[in-house]
């Protein structure tokens, strides 16, 4: 991408995550700067999703430090509300609220968590739905939307909190190729506008196109990282090359 990168927004410093004896994340450090789009790729079970969830404290880490816009995440006195206002996350399974319409899904958090004025919230929610090209579906319930439409509502719902960083956890993995495009399009636009994004993805083509920096993880560690041009053409590491041979 062509925009200017700002100061570091997410700084992960040597974190470790263990479930009992199982080490899921080992000595992971990475920095994401404002406006940067980072893609994390790697085989299943390499800890990508755990890493993403650690950033907004859905998964507590065992060791190390994660700083998001100055807030230390690995802190027992963490103000989770403050952190989660800064970090939006979109899940593979959309997780929309099925008892609320698309518009209400987008409105709920600003209305009830941020206690903003209803008229303002509604206007903004409509703009966000227009942004993901779903204006005509605002009164539809999630059960009647396609996977791709649901995922775009989920993106709008996260954006409604005006986050500093957006996390995407394999958001296209459950979608068919057609609807996948719509979602990738929405993310590409977001990145182009300068939103700081961290994506866990299996879409190599998309990663190559949209990312400023690519991290390859395996066995809970970062094996290799670099800008996409360099990363895809001359991967230095044996494991990276083996993985890329398989998926490309």
């Amino acid at each position, binding site marked *: 991408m062509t925009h200017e990168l700002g100061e570091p927004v997410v700084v992960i410093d040597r974190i470790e995550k263990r479930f009992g004896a199982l080490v899921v994340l080992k000595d992971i450090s990475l920095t994401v700067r404002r406006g940067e789009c980072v893609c994390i790729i790697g085989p299943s079970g390499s800890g990508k999703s755990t890493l993403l969830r650690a950033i*907004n404290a*859905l998964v507590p880490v065992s060791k190390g430090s994660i700083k998001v816009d100055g807030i230390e995440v690995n802190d027992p006195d963490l103000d*989770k*509300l403050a952190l*989660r*206002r800064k*970090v*939006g*996350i979109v*899940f593979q*399974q959309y*997780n*929309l*609220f*099925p*008892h609320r319409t698309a518009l209400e899904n987008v409105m*709920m*958090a600003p209305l*009830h*968590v941020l206690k903003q004025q209803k008229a303002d919230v509604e206007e903004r929610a409509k703009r966000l739905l227009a942004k993901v090209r779903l204006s005509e579906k605002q009164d539809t319930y999630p*059960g009647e939307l396609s996977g791709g439409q649901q995922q775009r509502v*989920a993106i709008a*719902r*996260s954006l409604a*909190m005006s986050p500093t960083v957006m996390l995407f956890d394999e958001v296209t993995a459950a979608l068919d190729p057609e609807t996948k495009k719509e979602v990738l399009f929405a993310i590409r636009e977001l990145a182009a506008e300068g939103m700081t994004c961290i994506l866990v993805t299996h879409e190599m083509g998309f990663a190559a196109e949209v990312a400023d920096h690519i991290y390859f993880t395996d066995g809970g560690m970062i094996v290799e990282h670099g800008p996409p041009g360099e990363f895809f053409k001359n991967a230095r590491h044996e494991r990276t090359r083996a993985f890329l041979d398989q998926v490309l």
Partner: protein
Amino acid sequence: MKPVANGSDLPVLLPIRLPALPASEFGDRLVAFFASRRAFVAIVVLAASSVAAAAAADAPMRPGIFETVLKWAPLIGTGFLFNLAISVASMMVGTLAGVLLGLGQISLLRPVRAISWVATQFFRNSPWLVLLFFAMFLLPFEIRIGGFVVSLPAWFKAIIGLALPVMANVAEIVRGGINSVPVGQWESAESLAFSRMQTLWRIILPQAVKRMIPPWMNLYAILTMATTLISVVGIQDAMTLTRGALVAEARTELYLPFYSLLLLYFFAYCYPIARLTQRLERRYAVKL
């Protein structure tokens, strides 16, 4: 007393003649019959015809059985309304306490969770009649609040006694309903900075309540039928009144029609609830 094979005027002692079918075929028919919706009609007809049959066998001097049943029906009906009042009150108390207990089971505080779990298991696995006795004899007949003496009448204690097992069952319904909502809903609510209470109230419960309603209605129907237990602890309900009427009439041929009448009252009330429950179950089963 010697059993009378034939020529008895007591309808209850007349032999039942079964149609001459092979045993297995008869069994199949019986099962098919009770599975059918016609069972409802048949039970009504059976009750009515038992009244008529008894009337036919009636001695000429006494008033007819049908008239006698009609004479007592309003009184037994008021008793039945009392049973319904008890069932509604018990359900309200039990539901209120059960919701708290059910939410207690998913509390983040370990002691609250443990106490709620123990209470639920204890009251869910106790016989209703024993719990009723428990409430009748362990609750005082009056309590002192400040300077006031509030007496606790028997019906009040009965409501509490029946509310105890209802509470435990409602707690399980609430817990099960909440757990049936996918964890992804909790995760996404959490990541949108909803507090736990907000998540529960605005996101989880609205989805879970739909799934709680059918088993809750089912429980209510069971409770309504169980209210006749209070006759055992000396409260004048429909059951007691039926027995009283039979004692007053002192005619054995009235037993079947009178208890049929009582059954009909309950059936007419509980059967529609059961049908509605089934309908709701089917409707909510499809949608998330």
